[in-house]
Each structure stands twice: as structure tokens, then as C-alpha cells.
């Protein structure tokens, strides 16, 4: 598998077998049981999953946003531009955070310091990394992310702005550092539906213009469909399928992916009887050594209970369902 190691070297980000526990030292809870990701420069990858499936935890782990005493990485490695991020010191991480990996949070208004004016917030960021700027360049970048009257906005506090505006400020801050990777954790979920598309377009523009790779986290298949090149689908703290968007849409290789697509398309088609998934999502306390989707799966067989299934390579990605992988192979 020489090609794969070469991939490692060239990939912007390569995560393999990430396992994370959260909670105190005395009572850790395993949250992420297996997460892999491979991201090239300029790609947009979507991380898709129901809420509680571990998207936020895994993406924050990438940026090292947990305190040392609240998280532990049990296995795996995070290679960013060839460097193993988990081995870096706090100081070295600080050089990367914001500068090379930017993070946009789910709730922009809460994530901006309520007592800092927008201008102060942005300048603070630029000063932290000694990035040269002029007030003109600041205003221009604000314009670029779609802020009207940027001069006025610079003098305002976050609570005086709308959620959409604050999200643009966050994105503006993210692109001011011209990072190679932008992690956006459900950036549109707390914004009015009307504005969602605009933010998505903005992210696509940025991606094109700066060649910035984006990890786009969402629970909404439609949003993912709109923006992503590749998808990683998560369930119960496990990645269960990954591959190019087209292939997953046309030929999902995991029963759960299949269900997700059905839900989404029933919404799109305006079907009066919405298709929905029976049962409830898996929470960390219910984690067992078996296929996480077993309880809700229509295709389950006894062998699904024999340990957590391994990822199986299939054409255009990989899946954690050996049954469908087998079937797909046979179908091909």
C-alpha cells in the first residue's frame, strides 16, 4: 500500500483511528471510538451525523480545544502537514491555532466575547499572531464576508449584532489569518434559514478564493449536499462511512447512510408522510462492543454483535458495515 503512505505525506490532514475519552481522570467516558479523516488542500469535507454522534468532540480534538484535564486521547494520531498535532506543546499549538487551523463555532454570539468590541476582537486576533494589517485591510475583509457599514460594526459589541452578522465576524476572523484549514462546526444551525445559504455561499467563495480546506460539520444532509466534496458519516462515536459525496448519494454503503439519505429526500420531495428513522440515537453510556447501529438496523444479522466492525475499503471510500460491503462488492 505504498500509495497510501504517499497520501499521508501529501495530505493536509490525516487522522487515523482517533479515540477520545472525556470527563475527569477518575471517571472518563469514551466518546469517540474510531474516527478517520483524510483531507487534501482545498477540499471541503462534510462531517455528518445526528446530534450526539461525536462530531463536535472530534473536531475540537483536531484543534486541541480541550483542557488537558478534561480529555484524553486514547489512540490514534492527527497528522497536520506531516506534523503530529498530539505531540506538540501548548505553545506550538498556539502558533497553529488561528493561524493555520481556524475554528468557527456553532453559536457565534456566545462565542464572541460579549465585552469586546468587534474591532478589538479582530485586532486582538491579528496582534496575537503578529499579522500585519491596516484599518483599510480590516474593513475590506469585513466587506468581503458581507458586512455592510464595516466602520460602524467595528465599534459595536457582539450583542448589538445579529447572529448572522456575528457568524460573518467569526468567519472574517478565521480568514484574516489565511489558514490552510477551517473547521466550521455547524456554522449555520443557529442562524435564520434565510441567511443559511448566504453563509454557505460565502464559505464556498472563500474555499475557492484562498484554496482553504474546510471541515464542515453538520447534521443536515441538505447542507452537506450543497457544499461538500467528500463526506464522513458518524454514528455513536464512530465513523461509519466515508467517501466522495456523489458516490454516497448514489450508492450508500452503510444502512445508516441509506436512512439519512431517505430522510433528506423525503423532505425535499415534500412528501406528506415524512420518512423518519425509528428508535433513538446512541449515547456514550450505551456503547458496547457491537455494531453501533445494530438496534435500529433493518439488515442486522447475528455476526453484527461480534465486536465493533472494522472499516472495510470499498470503491470510493470505506464503510463499517461488512454486510453491505460484501453485497456492494458482489453488486459491482
Amino acid at each position, binding site marked *: 500500500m505504498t500509495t497510501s503512505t504517499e497520501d499521508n505525506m501529501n495530505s493536509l490532514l490525516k487522522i487515523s483511528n482517533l479515540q477520545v475519552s472525556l470527563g475527569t481522570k477518575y471517571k472518563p467516558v469514551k466518546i469517540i471510538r474510531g474516527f478517520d479523516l483524510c483531507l487534501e488542500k482545498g477540499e471541503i469535507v462534510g462531517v455528518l451525523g445526528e446530534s450526539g454522534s461525536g462530531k463536535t468532540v472530534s473536531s475540537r480534538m483536531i484543534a486541541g480545544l480541550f483542557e488537558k484535564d478534561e480529555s484524553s486521547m486514547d489512540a490514534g494520531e492527527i497528522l497536520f502537514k506531516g506534523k503530529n498535532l498530539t505531540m506538540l506543546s501548548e505553545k506550538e499549538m498556539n502558533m497553529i491555532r*488561528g493561524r493555520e487551523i481556524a475554528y468557527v*463555532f456553532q453559536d457565534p454570539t456566545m462565542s*464572541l466575547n460579549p*465585552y*469586546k468590541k468587534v474591532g478589538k476582537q479582530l485586532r486582538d486576533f491579528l496582534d496575537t499572531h503578529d499579522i500585519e494589517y491596516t484599518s483599510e485591510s480590516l474593513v475590506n475583509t469585513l466587506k468581503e464576508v458581507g458586512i455592510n457599514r464595516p466602520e460602524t460594526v467595528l465599534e459595536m459589541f457582539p450583542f448589538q449584532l445579529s447572529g448572522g452578522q456575528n457568524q460573518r465576524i467569526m468567519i472574517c476572523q478565521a480568514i484574516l489569518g489565511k489558514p490552510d484549514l477551517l473547521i466550521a462546526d455547524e456554522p449555520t444551525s443557529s442562524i435564520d434559514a434565510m441567511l443559511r445559504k448566504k453563509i454557505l455561499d460565502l464559505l464556498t467563495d472563500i474555499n475557492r478564493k484562498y484554496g482553504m480546506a474546510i471541515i464542515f460539520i453538520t447534521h443536515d444532509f441538505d447542507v452537506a449536499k450543497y457544499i461538500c466534496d467528500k463526506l464522513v458519516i458518524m454514528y455513536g462515536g464512530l465513523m461509519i462511512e466515508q467517501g466522495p459525496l456523489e458516490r454516497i448519494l448514489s450508492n450508500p454503503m452503510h444502512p445508516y447512510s441509506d436512512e439519512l439519505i431517505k430522510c433528506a429526500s423525503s423532505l425535499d420531495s415534500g412528501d406528506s408522510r415524512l420518512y423518519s428513522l425509528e428508535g433513538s440515537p446512541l449515547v456514550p453510556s450505551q456503547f458496547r462492543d457491537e455494531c453501533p447501529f445494530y438496534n435500529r438496523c433493518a439488515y442486522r444479522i447475528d455476526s453484527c454483535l461480534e465486536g465493533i466492525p472494522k472499516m472495510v475499503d470499498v470503491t470510493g471510500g470505506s464503510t463499517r458495515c461488512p454486510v453491505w460491503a460484501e453485497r456492494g462488492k458482489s453488486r459491482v
Partner: protein
Amino acid sequence: MKRMNMPLIMGTLIIVLLLAVILFPEAFTSKSPYNMQHLIFSREGGSLEVEVAPHPPSAQFILGSDDMGRDIYSFIIYGTGLTILLGVLTAIGRFLIAVPMAISAGFGNGTSKTTIRQFNILFSAIPALLISVIILKLDYLAGLDKRASILAFVTVLSLVGWPKLGALLMERVDFINKQPFIRSEVAIGKGRIKIAVENVFPHLAPEMVVLFFMEIARALSMIMQLGIFSVFVGFLKIIKDTEGGVSFYDISFEPEWAGMLSTAKNFLSTAPWAVIFPAIAFFISVLGFNLFGEGLRNILQRKDSLFIPRVRKLLSFDIKYIWSSFSRKGKAFSVIFVVSIIFSLSFFILAGNGKKLDITDVSLPEAHTAVIGTDEAYAAARLISTKMEELELTPMDSESFIHTYTIPTVSLILEQKFVLGNQDKYSAGTDYTILDSPDGSFSGGIYDATRMDLFSMEDFSMMEDYFVMIDKAYYNDAAISYFMNKIEGSVSVRGFILVARSGEMHPNIYCDRIAPTTRVMISGETAKDIKDMEKPEINISISAKTLGETGLNVIGFCKGMDELLNEEVIMIGLPFNYSDDGEKQILGFGIRLMEEICKKDKNRRSLMFVFMDGTDYSKLSGIHALEADYPYSASKTKVFINMLDLNQAGFDNLIFSNLQAPFTRQYAWSLGRQLKSNLEQAGIGITEAKSIFFGDQYYFTDDPTYNTMFMDRGIATIIIAADDEGNGKNSIEHLGRILVDTINDNIY
């Protein structure tokens, strides 16, 4: 419409009121909190009623009095300062411990976290109150002076009280750290410490401001509870020998609320007012600080409050400087600081053991006498006031050190003679005192009326042409002057000879020139001589001159160096009249004493020097004018050292009394005791001034002016006077040195 912030308004009102009371207690009460009135006399239906303290609330004692007859109201007013100060200092102390602990714990320092938790557990198992009581009741702590006692009190209250605050703050820091925007600060690559400085401090600040006021309230209520356990600042065990043995008293000296509770709780059933009112004072203050904190919280925690951005600005401006000076330099500075404090303290202790106080280098006026109402007295007053100006003392009012007062018309005796039979051995002032007489020489026989009942006599013809001798011991002054008028109205007499009551004789320098015939007072011994004579003959000659009607008090104020103590004043009263060269030296002594005490800037308290006129005749004494128009706050005048009767430059014994500096006046009491022991150590004999104990206090019988300041103004008084007998083996310079040293020793 804006909703009113009621807690803030109420809290502010209460705090402003407290501040006003602290800053201007005089505006709220004219009474000195130290004044004691144990007994109240009143006439009811012709009989005398005596009421013993504690007195219930009345027009005289608005809120009643305590068991020592001190006015509760003025005690509360004057106690506000110290009580609130204690609360504030305790709150500061707790913050000094809790804030660093809470912040380091909030940032994951395990030791701090555990410390806060364990202390909280400890103090919930054993109440902090109990620990404080046990520690503060230790004999060592109980015997400290005021400042050390405050320090000990605040330290203990801080140590037992901080964990609760620490836990609160730690929670708050945790909460701030969990705010989503902190995570986004991490995400942009900021360092932890920078985030802490920029966010945790400023976001904690409004909470701290709020908690600070609440903490004052908490501290105050703890102080109140401690008071009930007889633990309070300024408390001293008084050991008193009684018949049953030795008993201990916990007495509150300083006006302070907790102390009031402590002493008054024993009278809860008989004098509930003595407990209730201080408790209400506590209640109102606790409420005030709590409401104020609550009100502030309402403002500060509004999102659009500009408080946090301002604090942040302040912090980010200063922090670089603090950071840089914190390393080696900071440590060096603090070491130098501590060392210099120790150094200056030891300097204070060691300084002041100098030589005698030499009075020969004072240039005195040429005149041989300077008595009240003469130009010479004015010249002496000018000399003193020039000296005060040189020493940079300040006058009490307007520009002049010299305060004038009006004196009754009186004459100075220029020459006098008193011959009994053919004996000319009698000396003025001790054997006889001419009270009132026209000028001239008068002689005649003596008619002894001492055994007669003058009340029932109608016929006085047998007294014709005689000097009539009357014993003052049997009649009061009004009766005597009534007899004299009656006798003079019916027959013509030569004059009256009045036998003095015991201790009534006084120096014979002044007399009146009102009566038509001579009135002379004689001592008991002289009277005995007369009675022993078969046919007593007497010759009295006198010439006198009427004096001016103005007395002069020269008052200078020497400000103390200690910001905390220079409100307090030590008043030193000195005479400046003289009628011979020996007395003239007393003036020199007074000036030197003032020079010596004021020239070094080492007095912590302020001093007020009062050179009084007319001190050799109580009727003319400047002390009455001073008392009637006292130029300073009586409650802040901690002691009056009365040396007005010091009229000998050499002596064996001194008359000394600190009876009017009782234990309730801490400063005066301890100064008095120290002065007494220093005098004794120096080999100067001490004679107690004659006094009677009446009600709850001592009255001096020798001289009515001794009592004036204490009885009428409530100013504790220490009497130092010359004892008439002796051959002067001790010099006044010696006394001066002891006074200077004792005052300079910064005793409590």
C-alpha cells in the same frame, strides 16, 4: 420608563449615612461618648430622687445609657467608624487570600482547589465563629494595644472567613472559564495566561465589587456575633481587687458596637435598650451593604455595562509594568520595604532617651511679676505666642494664638499685713487670706462669734467696734454673707474674720474691694491662736490695685504625624502667670516643654498646648473660659494633662492624680499609669490629690478647677501639681524629661 434600582438606592442611602456619621460624628451628637453619668438626681415632690445607671431612654439619653452611664446614642455614633473599618478591613483581608486562591484554582491548580475545599469542609464542621472566639480570647491577643488588636482581629476573621468567599470566587472563575468565548480565545491561539488576564480578571471584577460589599456585611454580622461572646477590639481585661478576691471585667473602651453588645448583654432584662440599639445599628449596616451589593449587581451584570471593558483597559495598560517588576526587582523592593519598616519601628522605640529639659535657654520677660489683667501678663502671652509661631504651631481659630476672656473685677494685693496682738508671724495664703477690703490700716478687738447661733440672733450691739469672728464650717456661703450684711446694717463693726473650712485656704494675691469693711479668712490654727488670747487685738493693713478685665489663654495646636491618630489630641495645660522668680521658671518650663515635644516630628497624636491665665485663683482661671468655649472636639481630646497648679520649680513630691483618667478612657488611662510609674521610677514622690468618690467617679476637693474639664466636658484629666512642702530636691527639668519621654513613647 426605566425601572428604579431600589436596592441600590436604599443601600446608597444607608452607606452615605454611615459615612456621614463616620466623618462628622459631632454633627450627630454633642455628647462625648466617654462621658459617664452614673447617677441622675431629680427633685420630685420635694424629695431627692436618685436614679442609677443604666438609664432608660429619655430626653437626656435619647437611646438610654449603659450600666456605666455612657450615652448609648453617642456611643453608637462614635462607634460607627471603628466598627465599619473592621468590617471593611476584614473584607479586604478575605479578598487578599481568596482571590489568588480562587483564580489559581479556577485555572486548574489542584493544591488551591483542595485548600479551598478542605477549609470549607473544616469550617462547616467547626463553626468559624467558635474558632474566632477561641483564638481571640487568648490572653496574648486580648492584651494588645488598639492597632495590634485591630490587626489581630482582622487577621483572624480573614483567615476563618475566606474559604467561603474563595469557593464562591472559584465557582465564578470556573463559570467564566466555561464560557464559550473563552474557548474561542483558545481557538485563535492565545496563551492561557493572557486569556486569564484579559478575561478572567475583568469578568470577575464586577462580581468582586458586588461580593466585596456583601463580604463587609458578612464580616459585620460575624463581628456582631463575636461581640456577644465578649470578643471585640479594644477590649482589655480589667483586674479589680474586691473583697471576694480578684474579678475580671471585659470592658469596652473604644466606642465600637460589638463591645457594646458584649457589656450590655448582661443587662438584657433590666436594660434591653443597651443591647437592642447597637444590634439595630448592626442590622442597618449589614442591610445597607447587602442592598448596595445587590444593587450594584443589577447594574454591573447588565450586558451593556461598560464596567468590564474599562477594567480590561486598565488592566492591559498596567499589566506589562507589573509583570516586569514582579521578578527579581519586585522581591528586592518588598525586602527593602519590610526592612525599612522594621528599622523605623525600632527607631521609634529607641529614640527619646535624652538629657534633661534645660529651661535656662529660654529668654524670659524682664518683669518680676505677671498676673492676670496686667500688661506684664500680656507681654508673657505675647512671648508664648511668638514661640508657638516659631515652632509652627497653628492657632485654633482665626490668626491669633491668644484667646481673651472676661474676668470679674478683682484687685491685686500690692502690700498686706496681718498682726495678731503683737505677733507678726502670720503668712498670707496659708494663715490668712484677705478676701475683700478697702485700702488702709484697720485695727481693733475681736469678737468671737464662733459659738453663737447667728440664725436666731437679733441683737448685735455687743459686736460694735469689733472684728467679728465667724466659723464658716457651720454655715454655707449664702448664710454667711447674709449675716455679714445684717450685722453691718444694725451696728458698725471693724470687719469680719472668717475661719476657713478645711482645705479652703488659698493663696492670697487677689482680693475684692467691694465690701465696706475688711473680710479676712483665717486658717484653723490662726483661729486657735485668737481663742487662746485673753483680749485679742488685730491689725490689718492692705493696699491693692484693681486689675484689667481681660484674661488671656494662649492656645497652640501641634499636628500629629500619624494620619490615623492625629485627630486625637493630648491637651497640655500650663500656667503662665508668675509673682516671683521661682514661678517665672514655670513659664520657662512650659515653653521648653512645648519646644521639646513639638520640635521633633514624631508625635503620632496631635497636641494642644494651652497656657492659661489666672491659674492662681480659681475664680479667674482661664480654664472656665476654655471649658465654656472648647476649641476642639471633646471626644477626640484623649487626655488633658492639667499642670495649672504647678507653681514651684523645685519639689520633693508632686501632687499627681490619674483618677479622672479611668480605665474607660484607654489612652488617658494608660498614659496616666505610665506617667505615674515613670515618675516613681525617677524617684519623685507622689501625693495623691485629695478626692472623694461619689457615684461612679472621683471629685477633687482641693481645687474646683481640677474637675472642670472632666465633669463638664468629659475630657479625661491627669493632674500634676506642686506639693507645697519640701525643700526642692527634684527639679522641674526632671519632670519635663519624663513628660516628654512618656508622651513620645507611643503607648496605646
